[in-house]
């Protein structure tokens, strides 16, 4: 009963958050000068036409001279009906451009999430249970390294080492390579390593701290007093309880780190994914595409947060449904 109500509330909150995010982008567009119109007018002026007249015609043709509330309703309807407009910089509908780009992003993004979670938690828990050992110190060192190294610089250094000096790996991504091939794996290796380093380090630090807290707790002592093996204590007791707080950081933190990283990765390795699409859109002042590439990560983040809240229901019997 309480649980159903909780789930309903969380879903409702996700809807509200989505609505607010979309409205926010609309609001931002309204209060700033229209970039597309400026581009069109500037082009027209260059070819001898009147700047202001062209600008006005541009706005009129797109219905941008109408009252704000009308435009708002239109805008929201378009977003809702997936009519996201036409990207002039790509020469195709926005959704088509995104449909082509996401495959490339997913190729390194999904492995990075998996590596962040598995490796991060794994090393974190291991060093928590083996505190003050050389492995633990090495782990801490790697964690500091990971959260501190600027990923763009790290990428450059790795390219310099493995691409230029040792010539082991390609220095940039070739989209002509077959998806399931050794060559593709090789060219994805550096992007995945660079992208996941920071989040692996973050997960390590966090899971280590959590596990240390629980490793000292009374219920773990009870489990040991039962004669449980270290493995059982770790998996059935420490990890199972630590999953609750860890699940919160996985979504919020990992997504944030990876989104920011994806722009950099795609720029450096020249991967034609969503990040590059977004950057190109911004550079060419292609407003519909800028909006789409902004909203998609926001939707993913909202969806991720919703999944995380629902995971809570499954993971933590203590959850107080009234309080969240």
């Amino acid at each position, binding site marked *: 009963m309480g649980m159903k109500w909780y789930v309903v509330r969380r879903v409702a909150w996700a809807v509200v958050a989505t609505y607010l995010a979309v409205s926010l982008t609309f609001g931002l567009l309204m209060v700033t000068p229209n970039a597309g119109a400026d581009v069109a007018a500037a082009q027209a002026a260059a070819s001898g036409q009147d700047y202001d007249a062209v600008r006005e015609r541009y706005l009129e043709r797109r219905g941008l001279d109408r009252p704000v509330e009308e435009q708002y309703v239109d805008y929201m309807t378009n977003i809702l009906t997936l009519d996201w407009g036409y990207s002039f910089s790509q020469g195709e509908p926005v959704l088509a451009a995104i449909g082509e780009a996401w495959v490339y992003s997913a190729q390194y993004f999904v492995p990075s999430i998996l590596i962040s979670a598995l490796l991060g938690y794994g090393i974190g828990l291991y060093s928590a249970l083996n505190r003050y050992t050389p492995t633990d110190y090495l782990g801490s060192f790697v964690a500091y390294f990971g959260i501190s190294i600027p990923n763009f610089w790290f990428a450059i250094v790795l390219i310099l080492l493995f691409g230029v000096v040792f010539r082991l790996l390609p220095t940039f991504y070739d989209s002509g390579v077959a998806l399931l091939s050794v060559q593709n794996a090789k060219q994805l290796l550096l992007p995945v390593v660079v992208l996941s380093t920071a989040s692996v380090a973050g997960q390590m630090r966090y899971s280590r701290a959590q596990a240390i807290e629980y490793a000292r707790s*009374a219920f773990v*002592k009870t489990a040991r007093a039962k*004669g449980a093996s270290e493995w059982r204590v770790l998996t059935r007791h420490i990890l*199972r309880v630590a999953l609750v707080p860890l699940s919160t950081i996985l979504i919020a933190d990992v997504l944030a780190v990876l989104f920011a990283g994806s722009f950099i990765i795609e720029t450096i390795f020249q991967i034609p994914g969503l990040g590059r699409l977004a950057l190109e859109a911004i550079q060419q002042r292609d407003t519909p595409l800028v909006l789409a590439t902004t909203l998609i990560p926001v939707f993913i983040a909202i969806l991720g947060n919703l999944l995380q809240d629902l995971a809570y229901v499954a*993971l933590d019997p203590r959850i107080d449904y009234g309080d969240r």
Partner: protein
Amino acid sequence: MSRHHTTTDQTEPLLRVTDLRTQFRTDDGVVRAVDGVSFGLNAGETVCLVGESGSGKTVTAESITRLVDCPPGEISGRIEFRGEDLTAASEDRLRSLRGAEIAHVFQNPQDALNPVHTVGWQVAEVVQIHESVSRRAARKRAVDLLDRVDIPDPAATADAYPHELSGGMKQRVLVAVALAGEPDLLIADEPTTALDVTIQAQILDLIADLQAEFDMAVLFVTHDLGVVARVADRVVVLYAGKVMERAPVDRLFDAPAHPYSRALLACLPGRGESNGAIPGNLPDATDPPPGCRFASRCPFAVEDCHEGDHPPLAPVAEDTDVEAGATVGDPPAGSAPLAASSAERSASPDAGPDREHVAACLFHGEDYDAAHLDREVAWSAAEGDHGE
């Protein structure tokens, strides 16, 4: 210290701890939490470890099955369980003993159960660890055990999570967890301290019932002499990691030998003039001062008490408790003869291992007269004001 070995021709005790030392390395130095503790425990018997916070009683109890974090904890000495030295046992061997032969019940039931598993699962876990039984069979055993510890509607409660139960119920669950392996030794560490008074009595009764039913020995750790009087056969008084006195429970209450034991008893409501606390603090565990650990707080302390090692355990003269019910400070009818040798004393008919009464105090040694301890002393005068 090894004098009590003179009477080992008896049957081997279930547990014998000899010169146990547990120390922790910290930034501030080596903390000697347990510093040469010896005691024995027979099958079916209840022995209480008594002392203030920081006396080393919990570390002693947790050192037996090496539950203390190790490292940084370092355990030495001998811990013989049915003749097997546990300090030398492998981690695997200890694991097979924990829960099956030696079970624990801890102080605070609020934190001692895993919050994300049902209580039935947590009881059944013990069965599954130590026996190869099906999940169903383990669960059935768990429900039976929950029933045995008087949990109402055990089948439904087995599916409940710890946060859905009261503190008393949780402690019952933990007793069920401890019983699940049908152990011969139950180590109960302040199992009632965190509970309401009425619930405390219920849990103590439950443990006593089960002890009789399963013929378990119980090592009971507590700071509460009221609990000691209720459950103990014999008592080990600990202070600052050292044994101060070992005595049958009646002897401890009727004729406490060590000034520290007397101070503890004086803190009981209705006895002595102290109002609930012994003045002063425990000595520094990293760098204890020379001499008797209790000397700085002891109103009887003489110069010798502050020198050399902690005094060895010496037999307490038998006739000090002639006058049953003597209160602290009352002079006993006949003081111990100054030159009575230890051999003489242990030869007395009542001095078997179960009636052993020893105290680590110079005045019970050969060079002093224990009667000195019977002079009138106002405890509160020992050290200024005590405002706890």
